């Protein structure tokens, strides 16, 4: 009932506005099926854009300097993703754009120094960009004050050997060091970081629960949120994923602030369903816990084969997996006991992928309308040299990586069409746009009030896709890891057509998503 009411007001507003000026839009997207998850608006209409803002949604004929014919296509809010590790990679951006993404945020690993991260992307980003302050980098910097980040993103620093010890992962802070870590994190919030990113799952031996409580308390003080790769990937006691969830949900319930639990199916595994039920109850009791996942049943280890959760005891006993469930990203081969031990010894950061949740549990989680989609898009490596590839011109078949970096949106829309997941198209869109915006808006990011919506007054971040043919093309097969999604011919960022007839243009209309700086 509510949705009908809202949609009608919207269209009426649109009509009235366009009656006044019918001719001078910068861009018109004509005849598409306009879908807005917040209001439930869903009808064929024309969308007018001026100066980066949607200024009309109407069934009247409208004209603009440029008109895109969207007949037979869905006109959706540009997709938003809060779990993107390739925000600063031109190649990563290009793949994400083909997949319909218009706002890419690294909320899990985060940024440090925050100014450096944002400055690096100023004027050079094709999509909107933002990040949390990195709890992992705050620890690294505290233990090694000489740590200098290249671009404010610790992940490539780890792979490039700029992080010289494992202290960031394994060392327990002294009281003085804890104070220093929190100073660094708070400084990040004051510099406009969107929240606090704390991938404790990579630091299970070095991070205490006291640290986690402190992070959530700090987030609450700033009316902000944490994004947590939780402590355990495990379906078995004593170190189960649910305990890892509770470690952050409890302070979130106590102090407030939001929390996003990253790729929760990869953590919860066989307890995916009970975890969803419990989180629902926690939220009913007043907390703001957001479950996030990517639509794949295998993951990509953020620090390579030495990641805490891939250690053999955890892998076998707690995850129910074994050596053969790990895939070498470089060669595409499944590991053996011998290669596993060799790589761990000789190349602890060697990129690997690994199976985690069952396909059945993954579909159940994807079908839960409350769960949002975060791709965990991860840097790609060169098939020959193994070096990280970031060049915009990298051929699509010369990038080894988890297929989620190119296909997350495409696979979601395909799975919905094929009925493999129980969602309406509107719900699928919502999980990839509006629900991200709504969570972030609720937790202090005012700019998100105008994103994730296809409404007059919203930012003109728009994804136009063919609901009958849109599909992912990236797979685990070597050479196909990064093949771009097809069926998304137009992607518009702040009113600029960035993907034009399925070709990514060299334009940089992305704007920073950043909180006000507190002096």
């Amino acid at each position: 009932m509510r949705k009908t009411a809202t949609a009608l007001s919207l269209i009426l507003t649109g009509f009235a506005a366009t009656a006044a000026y019918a001719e001078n839009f910068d861009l018109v997207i004509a005849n598409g099926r306009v879908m807005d998850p917040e209001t439930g608006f869903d009808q064929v209409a024309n969308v007018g854009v001026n100066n980066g803002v949607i200024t009309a949604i109407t069934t009247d004929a409208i004209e603009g300097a440029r008109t895109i014919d969207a007949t037979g296509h869905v006109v959706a809010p540009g997709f938003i993703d809060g779990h993107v590790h390739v925000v600063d990679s031109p190649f990563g951006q290009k793949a994400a754009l083909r997949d319909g993404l218009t706002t890419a945020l690294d909320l899990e690993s985060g940024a440090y120094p925050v100014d450096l991260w944002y400055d690096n992307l100023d004027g050079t980003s094709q999509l909107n960009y933002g990040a949390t302050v990195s709890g992992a980098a705050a620890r690294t910097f505290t233990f090694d004050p000489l740590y200098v980040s290249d671009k404010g993103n610790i992940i490539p620093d780890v792979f490039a050997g700029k992080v010289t010890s494992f202290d960031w992962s394994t060392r327990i802070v002294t009281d003085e060091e804890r104070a220093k870590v929190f100073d660094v994190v708070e400084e990040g919030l004051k510099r406009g970081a969107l929240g606090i990113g704390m991938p404790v799952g990579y630091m299970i031996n070095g991070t205490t629960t006291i640290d986690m409580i402190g992070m959530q308390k700090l987030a609450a003080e700033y009316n902000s949120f944490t994004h947590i790769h939780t402590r355990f990937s495990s379906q078995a006691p004593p170190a189960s994923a649910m305990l890892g969830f509770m470690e952050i949900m409890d302070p979130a319930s106590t102090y407030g602030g939001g929390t996003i639990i990253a790729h929760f199916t990869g953590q919860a595994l066989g307890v995916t369903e009970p975890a969803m039920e419990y989180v629902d109850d926690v939220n009913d009791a007043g907390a703001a816990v957001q479950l996030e996942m990517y639509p794949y049943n295998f993951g990509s280890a953020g620090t390579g084969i030495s990641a805490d959760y891939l250690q053999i005891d955890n892998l076998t006993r707690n995850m129910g997996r074994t050596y053969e469930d790990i895939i070498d990203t470089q060669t595409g081969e499944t590991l053996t006991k011998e290669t596993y031990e060799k790589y761990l010894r000789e190349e602890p950061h060697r990129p690997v992928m690994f199976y985690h949740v069952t396909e059945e549990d993954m579909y159940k989680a994807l079908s839960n309308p409350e769960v949002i989609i975060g791709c965990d898009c991860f840097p790609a490596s060169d098939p020959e040299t193994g070096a990280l590839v970031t060049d915009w011109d990298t051929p699509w078949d010369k990038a080894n990586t988890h297929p989620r970096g190119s296909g997350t949106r495409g696979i979601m829309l395909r799975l919905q069409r094929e009925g493999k997941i129980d969602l309406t198209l509107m719900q699928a869109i919502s999980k990839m746009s509006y629900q991200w915006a709504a969570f972030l808006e609720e937790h202090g990011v005012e700019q998100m009030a105008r994103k994730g919506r296809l409404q007059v007054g919203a930012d003109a971040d728009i994804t136009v896709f063919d609901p009958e043919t849109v599909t992912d093309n990236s797979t685990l097969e070597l050479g196909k890891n990064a093949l771009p999604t097809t069926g998304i011919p137009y992607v518009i960022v702040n009113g600029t057509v960035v993907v034009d007839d399925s070709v990514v243009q060299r334009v940089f209309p992305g704007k920073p998503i950043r909180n006000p700086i507190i002096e």
Partner: protein
Amino acid sequence: MKKTATALTLILTALSATAAHAQGFDIVINNGRVMDPETGFDQIANVGINNGFVTEISTDDLEGARVIDATGHVVAPGFIDYHSHAQSEYGHKLYARDGVTTPMDLEVGAYPVADFYEFWEGKAFLNYGTNAAHVGARVAVLDGQEPDGRFIYSPAVGAAMNDGAQFKTKTFDPMDEPAILSAVEAQLKQGALGVAYPIGYYTVVGSPEVMAVTGLAAKYDMPITTHVRYLAQVPPSGFMGITEMMTIARENDVSMLIHHIPSNCLGLTKQCLDLIDSARANGMNVRGEFYPYQYAGTYVDADYNAPGFEERMGIQASDYKLAATGEALTNEEFDRLRTEAPTTDLLMYTMKQEYIDEAFTRPGVIVGSDGMPWIITDDDGNKLGFTATFDTPYGAGNGHARGAGTHARILRMARENDNVTLMQAISKMTYEPAEFLEDHVPAMRIRGRLQEGSAADITIFDPENVTDNSTPTIGENSLPSTGIPYVIVNGQVVVDDSVVQNIPAGVPIRGSIIE
């Protein structure tokens, strides 16, 4: 090399951005002090408008088909007034001069709601909208009279008043409830923005009826509004009236606007506002409202004016003045009017300045003018009724000065009062009202703000000189505010160099029409 590339990209981005600006805006407002209460943005900037929306706020030079120089002026979101009974072209004209872009009568509402929207369609120069008049449903059901949209203007009201006024005299009978529920629900299906309960005018109403009708507001996810029962600072008090409606709103989980708190609470204004703040802190979407005048408009036979008013309100007969002449009443004259002319309009001086200051200085309490329909009289002072037209001269309309001067008066008070910033004062007339309604009415989400993406409802005023000019003196009741030279509604200049243009710039603010 890398840095060069970056610099070049930056230049290109800047160039393309400039190129976009050069394509031109429909309207540009240059060099004003742009103030946005939601974000706290407050700096000299230029505002670009396309197709009815603000699409640029920038310190860059902007070019447009029309350029307004706002040097020395504040550029604020257009004012929103949820307590605007003067739903005529003359009434809207005075609101426009007072900086209001969205005047809605949510206190009394309309009946039938569809007729109200039809009345304004195609001719409103300001945004228009309404909620369902519960009192209209009562007049229709209990008195058998048919209001025709703008409730207060309807002949049906006078007819009911002259024939038993069942709507305000009949004691609660559960047998009436189904018909009243059905009548109100029909209004919600016509897109009413909730249900209005001005039960202070019909205190006989049964709480169970209000409770039941509020269930309909919940069903359609719309708010309720109320002029609470009791205008008194001793029991039964305005405070008690608020607690009644709070319970009804809470039980039904609906949002609620409580009109003119000082008017009903008098010496308990602080306690009433504390109660509302507490409810909001506990998660309820409830707002209090006030208008910045010490006197109220009323009529002789209003429930709260019944004998004994001296104790209830702490005033004397001489605190009442005839709206038509400004003449103070005596006890004898009051008694005579009760029998002979019960609908005579009065002004009553009930509010001390401290009550008003309590509301003015407290964040979260919004401004609602309670501007009444303007009364036209002939040369002998005989009432001709609500006959003002767009061309009726300023000053000719009689009624409470708040209908012409509330918003400019608030701006003047902010200038003269160190305890309220200009931004806070603006917020009470823009962002805070919008915030109250926006979860139910998306059109309000892009109003009450001055941001890229906001509807181009904009009020431009001179902060040093803006002032109300309307007074209680006959001939001055409806003098327009000055110092607000430009008012823009959906990207069209409705007040242009202080002259109101009769152009259909307004849009309906309306819920869904459910067949």
